[in-house]
């Protein structure tokens, strides 16, 4: 009985919430509302899936939020100031994500800086760095450059489509690109971690690095790759953010890090895993989305949102660490 509760408790709670909101509010149980929930957690969810990879190898990545906003600023800068096309902007962002992940990994693995501190430092560094090219201004079409000239570029239509286009799915124009990207990445990372030998070895590295090393695994390389995955995922989140906003807004993306980490940690409790896992992370993100959407539709004020998220996280962590006897990180 206790085992069933630990295994399926969180999923049951999610189902119960959906049922409750469907009954209590009108319009919750509609395709549009469902899609809206997915859309609201898409960027957070993608970041959370990335940070899950670092959690699996026993690390942590606090720089994901600032990687995402840096990628957003980079995309805007590439198109508006450098007048590049959408393809170049996307590649530029992904390269930044991979590079930051690589540097994080190298600092942690070879310079032996603890993961939390290294990525905290990187977070700070990026928060500052993304403001330097424009001397602290947001980037939008027609903006005035530091030298007094006016930026000539615009957000290319192809890039804007990433944020605006919706695919037909039973209903016309239903599913936005960001949700499709979230679902694809979720399936990819889930399959990678659960079913491939690389994912398996990453779990071994996280659980007992010495044993993994003596089983022939290149432990350092696995750790570095985990941070690269995390960086690339965060930059994808940044691309979606830029496409949604249509500008490089220095004030946006403040909550990304905390929301993403919360989703990944809530994921520990899903299916009684007691360890980082991609499926749990996705459910964790969705859980927060459902809860917030439902409460909003019941006219609960917006300023209670962070409190609700925090409460869910604390409960999920207690669930993970005290109810299921095994200790994860």
């Amino acid at each position, binding site marked *: 009985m206790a085992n069933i509760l630990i295994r399926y408790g969180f999923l049951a709670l999610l189902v119960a919430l959906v049922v409750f909101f469907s009954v209590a509010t009108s319009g919750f149980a509609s395709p549009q509302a469902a899609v809206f929930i997915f859309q609201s957690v898409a960027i957070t969810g993608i970041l959370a899936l990335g940070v899950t990879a670092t959690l699996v190898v026993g690390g942590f990545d606090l720089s994901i939020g600032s990687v995402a906003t840096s990628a957003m600023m980079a995309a805007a800068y590439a198109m508006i100031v450098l007048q590049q096309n959408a393809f170049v902007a996307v590649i530029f962002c992904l390269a930044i994500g991979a590079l930051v992940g690589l540097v994080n990994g190298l600092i942690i693995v070879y310079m032996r800086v603890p993961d939390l501190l290294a990525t905290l430092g990187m977070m700070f560094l990026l928060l500052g760095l993304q403001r330097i090219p424009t001397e602290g201004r947001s980037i939008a079409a027609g903006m005035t450059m530091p030298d007094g000239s006016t930026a000539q570029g615009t957000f290319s239509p192809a890039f804007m489509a990433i944020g605006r286009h919706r695919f037909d799915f039973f209903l016309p124009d239903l599913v936005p690109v960001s949700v499709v990207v979230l679902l694809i990445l979720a399936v990819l990372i889930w399959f990678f971690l659960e*079913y*491939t*030998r*690389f994912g*398996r*070895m990453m*779990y*071994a590295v*996280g*659980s*007992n690095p*010495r*044993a*993994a*090393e*003596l*089983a*022939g*695994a*290149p432990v350092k390389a696995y750790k570095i790759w985990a941070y690269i995955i995390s960086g690339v995922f965060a930059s994808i989140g940044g691309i979606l953010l830029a496409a949604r906003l249509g500008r490089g807004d220095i004030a946006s993306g403040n909550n990304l890090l905390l929301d993403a980490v919360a989703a990944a940690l809530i994921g520990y409790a899903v299916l009684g895993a007691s*360890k980082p896992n991609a499926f749990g992370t996705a459910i964790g993100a969705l859980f927060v989305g459902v809860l917030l959407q439902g409460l909003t539709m019941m006219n609960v004020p917006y300023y209670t949102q962070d409190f609700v998220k925090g409460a869910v996280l604390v409960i999920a962590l207690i669930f993970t660490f005290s109810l299921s006897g*095994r200790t*994860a990180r």
Partner: protein
Amino acid sequence: MATMFRIDGLGKSFGPNKVLDGVSLDLFPGQITVLMGANGAGKSTLVKIMSGVHAPSAGAMSLADQPYAPSTPAEAIRAGVVTVHQNINDGVVSSLDVATNLTLDRLTGRGAHLFFNRRRNRREAAEVAAGLGLDVDLKADIASLSLADRQMVGIARAMAHAPKVMILDEPTSSLSSSEAERLFAIISRLRDEGVAILYISHRMSDIRRLADRIVSLRDGRITGTFEQKPLDYEGAVNAMLGRSAEATAVSVRDGGKPILTVSDVRLKPQAAPFSLKLHDGEVVAITGLVGVGKTQFAETLFGARRAVSGEMTLDGQRFAPSSPADAIRAGVFLVAKDRAESGIVADFNLARNISLPFLDRFSFLSVVRKRAEREAARRQIQNLAIVCRGERDMMTTLSGGNQQKVMVGRWMSQPSRLFILDEPFQGVDIAARRDIAAKLRANAQGRATLVFLTELDEALETADRILVMSEHTIVGEHRNERLDIDRLLAEVAAGAMKGAA
């Protein structure tokens, strides 16, 4: 001579596990008693009871004819029994300076001052340091000190209590020889001042230098006391390693063609080079005391560390693995020492633990074939008679012996050229040990098997040939058939000085 410290019929059990069984031991003032014992003999437990960490399950202790039963380490120190622990950094706080470390125990407890007065602290520290003739900069950070100096600081602080009994638990295990010399000088001085000293060590050179008396501990019992000068070192080693008559003899086989050759390999810059050959189908044991380089050699063969010099060949090809992955590809497998630390992945079930090194062989396009993986695990469960409910059991539900069988099964699941096991019988019950040894011998054909063992009994039960290691080199070789046990023990005890005969 009056007894300073008396242990009488001391017993200690952890659950069903009897660690100490009726240990009686007297310590005399002005005398160094060396306690020898292999891993798991109960030395640390004895030290922990004497120093007030554990309470005994049976028996009693007395200090200067008064009953002595400390319930905390602090109580033991106050009564006059101080302990210098093996891990030097346990004794000092590395973020504080020398002066504060020397007086650390005065910062707390009754009568401690509320405010920290640096000048008073320095004055007290200078007194403590002078008590041991210690010449270190009181203002220096502990972190800037050598290991030996840190240990001196720990000892000086302990000495400030004017102890009656001092316990040193393998104090030289991380010291260089010149640092050890300084420690010996201090220990000799304490002896002359009339302290009763219990010195725990494996190192024969330390023991020869210091011992007035040797006591051997084996399986929780005192198996020998040697106080007649000149001391019988070989007898002490013999009593510690044990040589029970019922050790089952093996039917010795000669190996086939050579598989591994090692020529002039040096494990440490100052160690003597050695050579050896391992043959197809034979099981070779390398025995020797703890810390003589057995694990270094195992890890060198497995690519986890590199030899200082020398050549190795595997099947006639040059063999110089740069990583464990390299060694595994060449068919050299290692069941590493200390399975919890370096073998078991606790988050994985039995099947996943077995497949870990060979995931590439269990994968198709990098996707793990779980059915094949489970199949292989079931084969090993049957092969080694692992007691479990199934291949999906978590490792923590298994007993120590069965966990070890899983570790052995992991590396037996694929064919190897050289199969190395480092202390495979540590924390393994006798039945499981016999199973593993029998399996090792039964399927030894087609590979060379190399087992590193501290306990001589285990080597006698397992191997066709026994090599003796001492001071990071091979000092003796024996065929496990009517072997000259006295010569073997002499080699284990004597090391390179008079070994290699």
